[in-house]
């Protein structure tokens, strides 16, 4: 299927080149870096959700021995350049722009909002200094839920906006919505909510900013998903020329969407370094990470579904409200993504979609692994609710509604082509792996003994990167660049803007390049994390497998052609007659002619060839995703619910996945399992909680619970044969899929377990207490038809 030359590595679970350092404690994360003269920062943060700042006095902090500086929000305004968020500017996000200062000056807008920065000889002393800063606040009524934010009488968080609407209501229609609803056998309506939860990487946000006054240059050691976007953010905010800013990143301890660009704190650290003339390190602690780094997913949906008596989902009309928290982030872009993806791989004929984004006194809405995930949750819950009403099983209802793979391909009502989608195959595979009738028997036996088992199924597709649209791809991430060079030591070096934070690109991209170019895996080096050295790029959106994998493949091919062209002069043979295997170039049929590629590179660098010979063994490659394609699959969970304590156990979890061609199966599966684990966590354990005054109630790991080794079962994964759309590049992204589909899979299973009680579930967070509430409130008359 794939056209890679040697295929020794691609497709195999090659051991990671990252692991020797990871396993021996030799990884280099930001907090591991010590620079001469380095200082440490800590932030004074608002204890109140909404308040005017009447005064701030940092004098006692400044006087504390060991404190080198303390800067208020006002002082930072004087040494920085106000402007839009760099990432939002890069992505061209338009709309109402709230005005606010880097650190709070006149107002605080969430509990944890940074008010001042203290710089000291150690983090210990910096925190001591923070305790000495005196801030006088005047409480304002907190806006802690969307309905109050929508109320015009709620106190506006931003003076220049006048209200708490981040994006005003807008509506789109696709297909004939009114006719579809008018002609439907049934219309059902209900409200579905997704709760606030968050990324929680094991390494929080962290950076060291080091300003060199002599050179007027800033170096930032960052924990980031893109060194170039961080550089852009720092340059913009500090009013520096971009070529005076360098961002370097080593090992990154996870991110899941959190660490893109630079946060307000990181920018304050950079400004502080310039102000004090010494490197300044800031490593957020877990309390800061949980309260101030950002949160996600708090969305509600009023849904009307047009349904046939046979179980066809004909149309949806959805009103979405998204709570984007206090300071603008990518939250405002989520509704458009939800709208586009809501039909999924199904034959939905009509969609009405409207949304409003509101501002509240909570942490800002940031990107979190599959930011648009609510579309899968909503749709897969709706299908199950329809199935229950009609007595259909969960696989049946989905097979009924799935769009068949046709030629030309079906198109989602919102415009995307469904070329190559294998949802039907994944559902059928799932049915083979999970014997549904046998489960139903086991379930009935268990019920007779007072035990409640349930099974849930959900399907999804993800545009990773999605099929090539007729008009081509657009936006700053639509092309992936890579520089490839054959070094004199025989190493094939790949310079990529990808910034792995667990995705193992230093292994996967090397596998592809090694196969394509013809060197052993160990002879490829993937260089990441230095804006002076790598092209623009960003790791996120499940795009690396296709985009970076593709540019590695094509780039290695181009480099090989260039090297063979040069070698033809060296070896006095036509390039056509040369091949590269195991790091040696030789004339076909004449093994004795072999020369190591390193030797070839040294000869090229020697300058002995005239200008008529291109001896620069380097290429700059670009790749636009090729024909692309969908990732997707169907998941199944079997759960047991203890109806006396509300404790849910996930007994079995099965995945039928189409991730395109696999570069490295073990790495692909690790990504799937990690995403599923976060999805299970969202349903059973994780909630970013606020009380009605806007106090964060999940500020430690005792209250924000993430899954442990006892909470996640073995996740069985079957890989489907994909439908290749491209001649060469059919790797599809897999980073976000597990997180998109695991929540509805598990919720569907819980509802199935509780169906004898007549429970219907319209929410995603189901801790033990909620399970008991649902049972107590349910109407057993609503039991599954035929139960």
């Amino acid at each position: 299927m794939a056209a890679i030359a040697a295929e020794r590595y691609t497709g195999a679970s090659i051991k990671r080149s990252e692991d020797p350092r990871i396993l021996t404690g030799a990884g280099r994360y930001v907090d591991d870096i010590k620079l001469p003269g380095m200082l440490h920062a800590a932030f004074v943060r608002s204890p109140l959700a909404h308040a005017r700042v009447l005064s701030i006095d940092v004098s006692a902090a400044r006087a504390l021995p060991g404190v080198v500086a303390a800067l208020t929000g006002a002082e930072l305004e004087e040494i920085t350049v106000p402007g839009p968020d760099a990432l939002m500017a890069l992505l061209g996000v338009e709309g109402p722009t709230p005005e606010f200062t880097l650190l709070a000056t006149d107002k605080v807008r969430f509990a944890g909002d940074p008010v001042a920065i203290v710089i000291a000889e150690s983090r210990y002393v910096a925190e001591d200094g923070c305790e000495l800063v005196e801030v006088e606040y005047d409480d304002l009524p907190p806006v802690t839920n969307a309905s109050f934010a929508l109320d015009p009488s709620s106190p506006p968080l931003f003076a220049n906006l006048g209200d708490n609407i981040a994006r005003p209501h807008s509506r789109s229609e696709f297909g004939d919505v009114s006719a579809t609803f008018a002609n439907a056998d049934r219309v059902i309506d209900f409200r579905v909510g997704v709760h606030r939860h968050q990324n929680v990487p094991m390494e929080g946000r962290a950076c060291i900013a080091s300003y060199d006054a002599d050179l007027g240059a800033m170096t930032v050691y960052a924990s980031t998903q893109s060194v170039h976007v961080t550089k852009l953010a720092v340059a913009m905010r500090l009013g520096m020329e971009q070529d005076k800013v360098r961002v370097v990143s080593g090992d990154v301890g996870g991110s899941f969407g959190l660490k893109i660009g630079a946060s307000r704190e990181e920018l304050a650290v950079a400004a502080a370094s310039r102000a004090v003339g010494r490197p300044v390190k800031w490593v957020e602690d877990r309390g800061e990470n949980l309260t101030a780094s950002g949160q996600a997913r708090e969305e509600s949906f009023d849904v009307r579904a047009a349904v046939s008596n046979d179980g066809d989902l004909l149309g949806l009309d959805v009103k979405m409200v998204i709570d984007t928290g206090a300071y603008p982030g990518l939250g405002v872009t989520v509704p458009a993504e939800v709208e586009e993806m809501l039909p999924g791989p199904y034959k939905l004929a009509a969609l009405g979609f409207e949304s409003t984004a509101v501002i509240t006194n909570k942490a800002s809405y940031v990107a979190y692994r599959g930011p648009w995930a609510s579309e899968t949750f909503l749709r897969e819950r709706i299908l199950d609710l329809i199935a229950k009403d009609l007595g259909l099983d969960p696989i049946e209802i989905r097979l009924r509604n799935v769009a068949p793979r046709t030629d030309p391909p079906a198109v989602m009502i919102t415009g995307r082509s469904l070329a190559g989608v294998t949802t039907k195959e994944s559902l059928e595979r799932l049915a083979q792996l999970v014997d549904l009738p046998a489960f139903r028997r086991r379930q009935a036996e268990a019920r007779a003994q007072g035990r409640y088992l349930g099974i849930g199924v959900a399907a999804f597709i993800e545009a990773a990167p999605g099929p090539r649209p007729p008009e081509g791809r657009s936006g700053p991430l639509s092309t992936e660049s890579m520089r490839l060079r054959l070094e004199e030591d025989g190493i094939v070096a790949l310079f990529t803007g990808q910034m792995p934070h667990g995705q193992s690109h230093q292994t996967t991209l090397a596998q592809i390049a090694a196969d394509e170019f013809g060197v052993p895996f160990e002879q490829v080096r993937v260089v990441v994390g230095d804006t002076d050295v790598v092209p623009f790029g960003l790791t996120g959106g499940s795009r690396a497998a296709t985009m970076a994998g593709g540019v590695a493949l094509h780039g290695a091919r181009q480099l090989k052609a260039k090297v063979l062209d040069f070698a033809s002069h060296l070896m006095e043979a036509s390039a056509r007659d040369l091949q590269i295997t195991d790091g040696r170039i030789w004339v076909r049929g004449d093994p004795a002619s072999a020369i190591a590629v390193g030797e070839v590179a040294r000869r090229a660098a020697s300058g002995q060839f005239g200008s008529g010979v291109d001896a620069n063994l380097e290429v700059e490659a670009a790749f636009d995703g090729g024909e692309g394609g969908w990732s997707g699959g169907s998941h199944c969970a079997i759960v047991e619910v203890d109806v006396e304590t509300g404790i849910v156990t996930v007994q079995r979890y099965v995945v039928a996945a189409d991730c395109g061609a696999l570069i490295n199966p073990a790495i692909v599966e690790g990504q799937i399992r990690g995403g599923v684990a976060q999805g299970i966590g969202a349903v059973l354990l994780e909630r970013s909680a606020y009380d009605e005054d806007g106090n964060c109630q999940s500020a430690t790991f005792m209250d924000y619970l993430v899954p442990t080794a006892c909470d996640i079962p073995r996740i069985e994964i079957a890989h489907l044969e994909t439908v290749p759309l491209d001649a060469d590049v059919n790797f599809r992204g897999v980073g976000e899929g597990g997180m998109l589909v695991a929540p509805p899979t598990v919720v569907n299973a819980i509802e199935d377990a509780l169906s004898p009680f007549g429970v219907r579930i319209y929410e995603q967070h189901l801790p033990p207490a909620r399970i008991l509430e649902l049972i107590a409130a349910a109407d057993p008359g609503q039991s599954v038809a035929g139960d």
Partner: protein
Amino acid sequence: MADITLRVNGAACTGSPEARKTLADFLRDDLSLTGTHLGCEHGACGACTVIVDGRAVRSCLMLAVQAAGSEVTTIEGLAPDGGLGTLQQAMWDSHSFQCGFCTPGMVMQAVAFLSDHPDADEQQIREALSGNICRCTGYQSIIDGVLLAAERSVNSDPAAPPGASPDPAAPRGASPDPAAPRGASPDPAAPRGASPDPAAPPNRER
């Protein structure tokens, strides 16, 4: 501040930490052993786990001064120079980790557990590691690494050098034979990662 002496990874060390400085910060800052990570600083995530006097402890919940006179082993001290111990090798072979931030704590906890419970089964291993949070992997690959290490330790020749993988046929990185089968699953059609016993009990007992 008091002067303290302790042994870290077999070497005598001294320092004068403030009383309030945690053992974790002392290891990282004063001894530049940055392998031990800080994930929460309130004892809930296990990233800071080291071995003190033979027991796995959370170094963020010990003061440095409390380690005076103790034997401390960190991730850096687990294997002979530049090598990998049995568990580390098994975890490499099992693709146990992704971002690596939880890794040192997870490895130290697993090492301590395996040395006391070499015959542990999967459920026992999960419970033993349930205090170490990983956000990337969903744990299965980590458990597989621990199980593989336990199996290898049982099968190993006690006279073999400690850092060596005892099984010369253990999966390696690149296959030297271009025709070698791809992927690690012996049966391409079987779902990967299935529990060996379909009737196996759920992962959590209450």
